[in-house]
């Protein structure tokens, strides 16, 4: 591998992962062997990439947990305007996931997938963690030791609850759905095998799935 190829790969890796990477982590891209670059070569690639950023809108910065590309803060004002006109809301998938965690805790990702019948996107879980609504409380003792997810006190605070016991019981929820069927049909694109009703919803709600978790409203 030439040093130019190595540099390309390092740049691409840092931009693809969007989390700081150390030299050691970057080296995980290569199998052990004579072709594996050494730390010095990676370091050199990083130096060059850093220099390449001179005069650009992004810079390669070394932070505590490694290197990452970041947008220069001088440009923040203008770029922030791009976020501005994007009011957001949570996707149906995220809300359902949160509800399952609330009622079935502690619960693993796999169990959530079983209940929803759809695989769980990493973005949803990340968003829930970022909002500090969920936490890991342990690991299930099965192969893979999946994490057990539960809601936090922050979740209770946000929803103005003193304790989980204050959440309505499942029976009450079912009643609710019988009383106000219209409300439920508007909550998302739910389709089921025989049923036509669900499909209709999809049209009504611009349920976007950008970033898996948060939806910019105006783009449908």
């Amino acid at each position, binding site marked *: 591998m030439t040093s130019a190829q190595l540099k390309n790969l390092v740049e*691409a890796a840092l*931009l*693809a992962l*969007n989390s700081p990477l150390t030299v050691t982590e970057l080296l995980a891209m290569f199998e052990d062997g004579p072709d594996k670059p050494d730390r010095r070569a990676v370091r050199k690639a990083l130096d060059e990439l850093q220099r390449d950023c001179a005069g650009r809108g992004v810079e390669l910065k070394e932070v505590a947990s490694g290197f*990452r*590309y*970041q*947008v*220069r803060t001088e440009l*923040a004002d203008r*770029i*922030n*305007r791009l*976020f*501005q006109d*994007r009011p*957001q*809301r*949570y996707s*149906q998938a995220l*809300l*359902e996931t*949160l*509800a*399952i965690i*609330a*009622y*079935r*805790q*502690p619960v693993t990702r796999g169990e959530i997938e*079983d*209940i*929803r*019948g759809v695989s769980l996107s990493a973005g949803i879980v990340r968003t829930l963690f970022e*909002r500090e609504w969920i936490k890991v*409380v*342990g*690991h299930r*003792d099965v192969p893979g030791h999946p994490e*057990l997810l*539960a*809601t936090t006190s922050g979740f209770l605070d*946000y*929803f103005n*609850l003193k*304790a*989980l016991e204050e959440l*309505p019981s*499942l*029976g009450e*929820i*079912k009643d*609710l*759905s019988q009383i106000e069927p219209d409300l*439920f049909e508007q*909550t*998302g694109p*739910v389709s*089921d095998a025989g049923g036509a009703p669900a499909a209709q919803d999809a049209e009504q709600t611009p349920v976007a799935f950008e970033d898996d978790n*948060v939806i910019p409203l105006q783009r449908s």
Partner: protein
Amino acid sequence: MPEQAKAGAATQEEMPFAIVQGVPLSEIPRDLYIPPDALEVFLEAFAGPLDLLLYLIKRQNLDILDIPIARVTEQYMSYIELMEVLQLELAGEYLVMAAMLAEIKSRMLLPRPEPETDEEDPRAELVRRLQEYEIFKQAAQDLDDLPRLGRDCLAAWADFPGKQVNASPPEVSLETILQSFGEVLRRAEVFSHHRIEREPLSVRARMVSILDRIKVEEFTRFQELFVVEEGRPGVIVVLLALLELAREALVEIAQNEINGPIYVRAVA
């Protein structure tokens, strides 16, 4: 392709069985033998009766336009019988196809009028469907081969430390969450194996708070987990939570000697 049609069995072996990445394969891979216990998996590999039928035709190197209906029907029926013998749950569509094949076969066996009459070949509809299905099966394969975000092309992004707007994340009401869960429940009822039974929430909540308190490295005294002030119901809930945690193998409960103190710790 007239030659191919006339060729029949004699030259069948020379014709490519399939084109894989530009290389014609004229032999069926030997590793296609399916051990009986893998049958279920094997059948699941078929996306439906058309897929199975297409497989039977392709593996004999036949063109869809000249299906030997009796032979293919027989083979198809063998699969169906086998599935029934093994008591595999058979999608209704497979039986519908069996009936269709049987009907075509019987019509083919009837003495037919002279070819100049414009009566349609009994296989015409089946051939049309097979062709159409094959086209989309291929299209699905092509789609799968396209570069895909997150697999072949990774979006490049940089951190944005200056990001300020929308610091307040979307608002959600509890009602919305409840509606979402009602939706999950409604859907879950469609699938009986996804049954969500009613469970006292307080036990679940207590399970989490116990997990929060105990550690993997050291044992926590059993008694410490109970809050006497909560009275009898509170104590019972804690006990139930501990038992449930033990049942789910999330905690380990230990007692070194008879009547000695009981300890609890999280399972690593």
